[in-house]
C-alpha cells in the first residue's frame, strides 16, 4: 500500500483528537462559566479567557496537521 495515504489520516487525527480534547474541556468550563455569569455578569471577561485556554490544543493540532500536510 502507498504509505502516502497515511499523511491525510495523520493530519485528520491531529486536528480531530485535539478538537475532541478541547471540546471536552470547553464543555465543562462553559457550563461552569454560564453559572458564574448568571451570578456575576461582570465576570464575563475572565470566563471568556478561561473558556479560550483549551482552544490552544486544537490550534496546536492544526499546526501539527499543517506541518504533516505542507512541509
Amino acid at each position: 500500500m502507498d504509505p502516502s495515504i497515511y499523511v491525510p489520516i495523520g493530519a485528520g487525527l491531529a486536528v480531530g483528537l485535539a478538537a475532541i480534547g478541547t471540546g471536552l474541556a470547553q464543555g465543562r468550563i462553559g457550563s461552569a462559566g454560564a453559572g458564574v455569569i448568571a451570578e456575576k455578569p461582570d465576570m464575563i471577561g475572565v470566563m471568556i479567557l478561561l473558556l479560550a485556554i483549551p482552544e490552544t490544543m486544537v490550534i496546536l493540532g492544526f499546526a501539527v496537521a499543517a506541518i504533516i500536510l505542507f512541509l
Partner: protein
Amino acid sequence: MKLEMSRLQVIGLKSQLMPVVRQLHLLGCMQIEDVSEMESISARPLSLAKETIQLREETTYLVTKVEGLVSTLTGVLSSSEQQEMDGRLERSSEEECMDAARAGVELLAPRVQALMSKREKLEAEQISLPRYEITLRKLLPIVPESAHDPDNVFVGVLVSRAHIWVLDGVSEALLKMTAGRAEMVGEDIDESTRAMFVVVPKEFSDELEALLGREDITRLRLPEEIADQPPDSAVLALSQRLAEIPSELAEIRKGLGSLADEWLPRLKWWRICLRDGLDEIDVLTQFGETEQTFVVAGWVPRVDIPKVQAALSAAAGEGVVAELVSLTSQEQKSAPVMLNNPAISRPFQSLVKMFSLPRYEGIDPTMLMAFFLPLFFGMILGDVGYGSLLLLLGLLGLRRFSQPGTVRDVIKVLIMGSAWSIVFGFVYGELFGTLGEELGMHPLWFDRASADEVTSLLILSIAVGVIHITLGLVLGVWEAIREKSRHNLLERGGMLVGLIGLFMIVSVAVDWLPDGFMNPAAVIMMIGIVLLSVPLGWLGVLLGPIEFIGLIGNILSYLRIAAVGLASVYMAKLANEVMGMMGSVVVGIIIAVLIHALNLVLGAFSPTIHSLRLHYVEFFRKFYEGGGQPFEPFQSRQSTMLGGAG
C-alpha cells in the same frame, strides 16, 4: 486614554450646604468620597438635622408609594402600551414635586386600591364559582320538593367516601331528632366525595347545625348572596354571575388604563425627583463638618474643575471654596477611571471593560484593540462578498439602533471588521469564496485556498502573532519600568530577549542569517530564559522553560487566523461547487445561498470571538493589569434625562 482625575475639596458655610449639594448633583462630574476615611481632613462626620431625617423618612415613604403605583399601573398595560408610555414624562418644577407627589398619592392610591381589590375579588369568583356550579348541578336532580317549602330549611354536606359510614349515623340521628320528618338524599360528586342534601322543618334548624358541628362534617358553603336559595335558583344565579364577571373586569381594566394614561407620566417624573432628593440627603453621610462649616471631597475629571468651581461660586457665592488637594502617589493611584478615547475607538471601550477596566496609572489598550481587532477580523474573514454584506447589514443596524449602547458598539466593531475584510478579500482574491476567481478576480498577494499558498497564509499568521506578542511584551517592559517592578521587568524582559534569540535561530534555519549567528542566538535565548526564571526563585529552573514554551504556544495560537479563515473559505467553496453539482439550477442556487448564509453568520461570529480571544489571552496577558475602579459621579437622574433628551 483615560481622563485625568484630581481630588477637589469643597468647604462652605453650613447655610450653603443644600445649594452646594444640589449644584454638585446637577453638574454630575464629582465622585464623592467619604471624608471620614481621609486622613488629610480633620472634620467630624456630618450629623443630619432632625428636619432632614424627617424629610428623608417622608421621601422614602413617598418613593415606595409612587413605585408601588407605577408598578401596579404599568402592570395593567399591554407591552405595546408600556413602550408608548416609556417615553412620556410630565415634568413639573422640582420644588412642587414633593407636594404634588404627596397630594397625588393621597388622591390616587385609594382609587387604585379600590379597583385592584375589586379586580382580585372578581378574579377569585371567576375561579371559585364554577366549582360551586358543578357541585350544585350534580345535586339538582336529587333535590326533594320539600326544599322549596318555606317552612323547611335545607343544608348540603360533603363527605369523603372513605368516611361514608358517618352519613348513616347522621341520617339515623336526624330521623330520630325530627321524628321521621327529615328528608335526606345523597349523590356522588366525584370519585372521592359524596354529597348529601338534608331537608328538615324550620324548628329543627338549630339542632341540625349542632349535629353537623358535633360530627365535624364539611358543609357545602355557597357564596353569601345565594346561600339561602334552593339549589336550582342558586345555579341560575351562579351562571348569571359568571356571565357578568368578564364585562365587570373589562370595566375595571378600562378604569385602571385611564388612570395609567393620566397619572403614569406624572408618577414617573415624581419618582425621578424623589429619588434624586433621597440621593441628596444620603450623600450627606459622606460629608464632614465643623461648628460653622461643612466639607466634602471627591474625584473630578481635571477638565471639569473650572466648570465645577464656577458653578459652585455662582450657586453659593463667597460662602464656599472649592480647591484642589495635592495627592501622594499612592492616593493618585486610587483615582477612579473614566475612559475617554477618540470616537473611532470608543466602541472598543466596552470590549476592554468586559475584560477589566484599566487601572488609573496603567495602559489603556483601547486604541491598540481598535486597530488590531478589526484587522484580525478582516484577515480571518477576508472576503469581498461577505465583507460587503456585513458592512451593509452593519450600516442598516446603525440606523435601526440609534440609541448609544452595547449593541451599537458591537455593530460599529463589526463594520470596521467588515471593511478590513473587504481589503483582505482583495488581498486573497476572494468573493464569496471561489466565485471571484471564476469571475476573473485575481488575488493581490496570494490565494489562501490553494494548497501551494497555504504555507504563505500560515507564515503570515505567525508573523502577525510575533508582531502582536512582541508589542505586548514591549509595552509590558515599559509598564514594569514605570512601576519599578523588578519581578515584571525580569519576566517580561526575559521573554522579550528569549524571543529575539528564537527569531535569530529561526532566521539562521531559513538562511536569512549566516550560520555563524546560531551560537550567539542560542546564547541570547538562554539568557532570556534565565532572566525569565530568576523572579520565580528555585522553581524557576522548571517553570522558566515552561513559561517560554507557553510563549511559543501563544505565538502559534495566531495560527487560528489561518485556520478559522480556511474553514470559511472551504465552506464557501463547497457552496459554489454544490451549485454546479445539482441537476437543477434553481435547487443548486437555493442550496448555495443557504450554505453561504450559514457561512456569513459564522463569519460574523467566529472571527469576532477569535480576535477577541487573541487580545484577551495572548496580548493582554503580556502587559495589561486591569482592576481599575469605575468613575461613578454623584449625578442626578434629572440631569441625565435632560442630557439624554438634549
